[in-house]
């Protein structure tokens, strides 16, 4: 029973069944069994992916989706390779943990709302797992859009909150804008190769002209930028924090937002032929890392801090993937999934306890919520890259790779970002857990159904870095060890960041506002979010709505106006013409006499009417009969 196909199906199908049952049977959805079904299904997926991770088989399932005769039909399939197996494990495990945690976090939700929540979660788990194992680019796109849909539905879960519904729509629009690129890139790549199937693409695409392939990959990467919240399309992710916190942990930190990175990893056999696009990827990644970290530094909402931090960390992954180390990018994706989910769940635990997101309204939580404090600290240390937490290993690998491969500028940008990362993370930590203000409400530790999942993630965040060598071996990456001063640099920078945060926010050696004033142009730009939101707002309100106004107005009052004016004129003309019908017998008599006179005059032979009529009657027009040259093809 452990053959690869069965295992593959037992990863993919349970969440789908759970979604279908919950979706199609309203009484089930409204009962408490909805949650049980969803959690049970993802539990089976987790078990199956664990077995896959241990046995590490390869395997493939293929079926035809769109038939065609003149073109090659579109095949779909799922396949197992090291990346998809490890990703299965990450996705199903984090989904399981988050769904269990949600039982506590969403306990105040009414049954039908909770059922809806778990239905969406099941759909998400299915789409994400399907995305991971897709063996056709078209299929990747399909699941890509479906995870986007789940993200939209779950951000807007509390649809009656105007901000939530706004954020949901914004997330969909921005990622969809990126997907315009993805769709066009995919279509034109198909146009040149005639296939969507990855293994065929990898053979055929390298034969294409480099410029053409570069264009395709650039467009596809545009989609990845939208989904993975890369600058300048990152604007939706902070707003997406309006959704429930467990959703942010699962979708907007651990799994869905890294889909773009996964796409680059998946399509790396194509990206490697397009060096220009790869250098674009590195630049986008590095800039995003820096800007994300800088923006995280000035936020006051704990979830937004974490959101910008996610943006920044995905930037790291993109940069290193662009630099050619897809396994290192994947390793960071792996560790990041655990520690960032942990941080979100810990933040959720705080929000659940004191019902606010603002860090300035928190303080001294370490006394009231000791478990959450420890767990948040683990997450923060892992994110900052402190030994022996998992983030240390992956971030080190990234920085060393950038240095060794000679991407000097990017190396320094990312190194500086590492400093900022430690700084903003521990700024948050000191304010929230150590600060001298007392929170207004009386916070309490969360129930075990929330803390237990967090402890599991805490453990993973601690140890996920250790299987580095075996993971690299499995992924087929020959990791070389570099013993040089570079290896100590990231760690020292991070410690420096923590020290800085400690001296500012704990010891209050100097005021943060003084620093902000000293850097006023930068801080004011950051406070405006680099005006990106304003630019998009202008594009939406000004360009799109303006064009819509022009088009709508033109259609309604000009195109349709001409139609109406025509019929209006005919109506007017006919009411004028109607005057001829006076109803007086004399007028009609005049008409009859006039016509009679006219006829007499004509019959006197002024015009040769008669002859012409005769001619026509005698000679029937010959075009009524078919000229024989028209009749081809008759048997």
């Amino acid at each position, binding site marked *: 029973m452990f053959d690869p196909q069965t295992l593959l199906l037992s990863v993919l199908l349970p969440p789908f069944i759970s979604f279908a049952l919950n979706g199609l049977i309203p009484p089930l959805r409204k009962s408490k069994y909805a949650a049980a079904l969803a959690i049970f299904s993802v539990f089976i997926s987790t078990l199956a992916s664990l077995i896959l991770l241990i046995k590490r088989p390869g395997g493939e399932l293929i079926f035809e989706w769109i*038939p065609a005769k003149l073109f090659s039909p579109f095949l779909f399939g799922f396949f197992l390779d090291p990346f998809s197996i490890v990703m299965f494990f990450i996705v199903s495990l984090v989904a399981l943990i988050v769904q269990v945690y949600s039982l506590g976090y969403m306990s105040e939700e009414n049954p039908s709302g909770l059922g809806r929540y778990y239905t969406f979660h099941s759909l998400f788990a299915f789409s994400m797992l399907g995305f991971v194992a897709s063996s056709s680019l078209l299929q990747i796109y399909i699941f890509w*859009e479906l995870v986007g849909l789940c993200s939209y539905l779950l951000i807007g879960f509390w649809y009656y909150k105007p901000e939530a519904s706004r954020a949901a729509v914004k997330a969909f629009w921005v990622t969809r804008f990126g997907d315009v690129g993805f769709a066009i890139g995919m279509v*034109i790549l198909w146009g040149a190769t005639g296939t969507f199937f990855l293994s065929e693409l990898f053979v055929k695409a390298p034969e294409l002209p480099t410029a053409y392939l570069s264009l395709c990959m650039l467009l596809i990467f545009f989609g990845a930028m939208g989904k993975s919240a890369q600058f300048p399309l990152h604007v939706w992710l902070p707003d997406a924090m309006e959704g429930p916190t467990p959703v942010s942990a699962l979708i907007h930190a651990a799994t869905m937002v890294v889909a773009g990175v996964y796409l680059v990893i998946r399509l790396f056999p194509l990206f490697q032929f397009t060096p220009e696009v790869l250098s674009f990827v590195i630049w986008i990644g590095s800039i995003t890392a820096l800007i994300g970290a800088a923006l995280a530094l000035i936020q006051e909402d704990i979830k937004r801090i974490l959101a910008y931090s996610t943006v920044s960390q995905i930037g790291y992954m993109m940069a290193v993937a662009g630099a050619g180390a897809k396994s290192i990018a994947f390793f960071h994706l792996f560790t990041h999934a655990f520690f960032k989910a942990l941080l979100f769940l810990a933040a959720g635990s705080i929000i659940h306890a004191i019902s606010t997101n603002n860090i300035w309204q928190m303080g001294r939580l370490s006394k009231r919520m000791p478990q959450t404090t420890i767990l948040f600290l683990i997450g923060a240390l892992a994110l900052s890259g402190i030994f022996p937490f998992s983030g240390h290993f992956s971030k080190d690998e990234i920085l060393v790779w950038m240095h060794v491969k000679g991407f000097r500028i990017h190396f320094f940008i990312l190194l500086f970002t590492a400093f900022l990362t430690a700084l903003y993370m521990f700024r948050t930590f000191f304010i929230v857990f150590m600060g001298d203000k007392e929170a207004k409400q009386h916070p309490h530790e969360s129930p075990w159904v929330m803390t237990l999942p967090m402890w599991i993630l805490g453990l993973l965040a601690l140890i996920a870095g250790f299987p580095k060598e075996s993971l690299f071996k499995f992924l087929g990456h020959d990791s070389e060890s570099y013993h040089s001063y570079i290896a100590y640099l990231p760690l020292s920078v991070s410690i420096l960041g923590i020290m800085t945060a400690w001296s500012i926010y704990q010891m209050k050696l100097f005021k943060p506002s003084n620093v902000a004033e000293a850097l006023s142009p930068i801080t004011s730009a950051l406070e405006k979010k680099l005006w990106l939101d304003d630019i998009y707002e202008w594009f939406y309100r000004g360009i799109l709505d303006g064009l819509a106004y022009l088009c709508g107005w033109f259609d309604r009052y000009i*195109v*349709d106006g001409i139609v109406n004016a025509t019929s*209006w004129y005919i109506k007017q003309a006919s009411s004028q013409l109607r005057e001829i019908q006076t109803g007086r017998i004399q007028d009609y008599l005049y008409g009859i006499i006039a016509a009679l006179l006219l006829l007499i005059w004509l019959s006197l032979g002024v015009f040769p009417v008669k002859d012409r009529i005769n001619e026509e009657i005698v000679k029937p027009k010959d075009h009524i009969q078919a000229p024989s040259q028209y009749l081809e093809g008759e048997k």
Partner: protein
Amino acid sequence: MTSETLPILSLITLSPFIGAVILLLQPERWYLPIRLTALSFSIISFLGSIIATLYYDSELGGFQFNEYIPIVQSLGIGYHLGADGISIVLILLTSFILIAGVFASWTIPFRSKEFYILLLLLVTGVFGVFVSLDLFLFFLFYELAVLPMYLLIGIWGSSTKIVAKGPFARAIMDMGLGSKEYGAMKLTLYLLFGSAFILVAILGLYSFSGLKTFDYIALEGVILPSSVQNWLFLLLYVGFGSLAGVWPIHTWSPDGHAAAPTATSMMHAGVLMKLGAYGIIRLGMGLFPDAAQTLAPMIGTIAVINIVYGALGAMWQRDLKYVVAYSSVSHMGIVMLGAATLNEMGLNGSVLQMFSHGIMTGLLFALVGLIYEKAHSREILQMGGFAKRMPGIATFFAIGALTSLGLPGLSGFVAELLVFLGAWKSSHSWWLIPAVFGAFITAVYALRVLKWIFFGTEKEPEINHKENPNGLKDAIGVEWIAPIILSAVLIVVGLYPKPLLKLMDASVIDLLQRVLK
């Protein structure tokens, strides 16, 4: 060419007609029997089309289930029916919409007998157009499909108040913009205007071919000189185009759809607009292949204008029915674009888009009708937060909106994808870019409307608040049936489009080979 077996196409076509005759004999006060009669004759058609779908040999292709009875032999007019893969798909679409439409008009407040009679007559016409292989018969059914619309809108429609601006404001206001009579009259005149062109084209073909027959199969064998073909094709394009909502002769569609009662809008946007596209594909491309090839660039370019212009027009509207109507204009652009690509992908996509858009717009109009019944308003900006009180309607509306923006897993995506692929493979690759952007604009307005009506803080139209407090409720009883059927079709086709595509593929290739040879 007589058929030895069951005359399945006649059964499908004439069953609604017989239903209409039987309805005539029932008194108005029989509330339930009237509906059940209409329903049962619709179900006969529905079952017939299912049987036709199952028994159609898609490997063989071509016209099957042929029936032939001569009517006027001296003029070459005959009762010739037959269906190929394309027709079968559209018959299937029509019967789904018919069943849904009967349920959607279950609660019609007055003169329900006459309403159902007209609806069934209309459907007879639609089925007839899709299966006739005789141009005279085709035209007869075509007119039968168009004319009941006038009464359906004029009697059971709804009016709204619009103030015109611009240089033609006076003319527009004088004509009575916004009233149901205006919508009905405009729609009918427009379509009669179109059918005049079609009639000329058909008669032209009759005389130029010299075969003295209206039979489609016989006329297929005639190759006219290309200049004649071009002119006749253009006549057909204008004639059918006015029904298919081709820019710039589409302006009847928003007003007509907005004024029409629910089932009529469903039928009209869902099926009747496809008659136009079907006419262009079947008669235009089938009979004038050279002209189709010559004029494809023009058709495609206009189609792209349709897509973007319709989407922007929908974005500007604040009246729910107008939004859906403009989105139809935009989606019909995708149908025409697919036809203009002249390759397998695009044309398959075009036919699938006809099906998908028919079901989707049927669903949306059914829901708009429900919302209107509960809220007594179509003004989007007066609504808000409805999802709390009508979660079911919100769910189905979301499915419709997501189909229209081309979300994978729903049928719209497959169709649009095929058209996009076809567009890139066609002689004018640039069509792809505006078409994809059109899909993006659709995402903008569809999600925006969804958000405005269903999400956010609760709002209620003032008029409704006074007249029926607590009236905002979810759908009940029979009201559920139409949305459930239609969205199920959208999902099934979206997940697994293979059977439907297989059904039409051979016929599409036949048609293409005629055009491209």
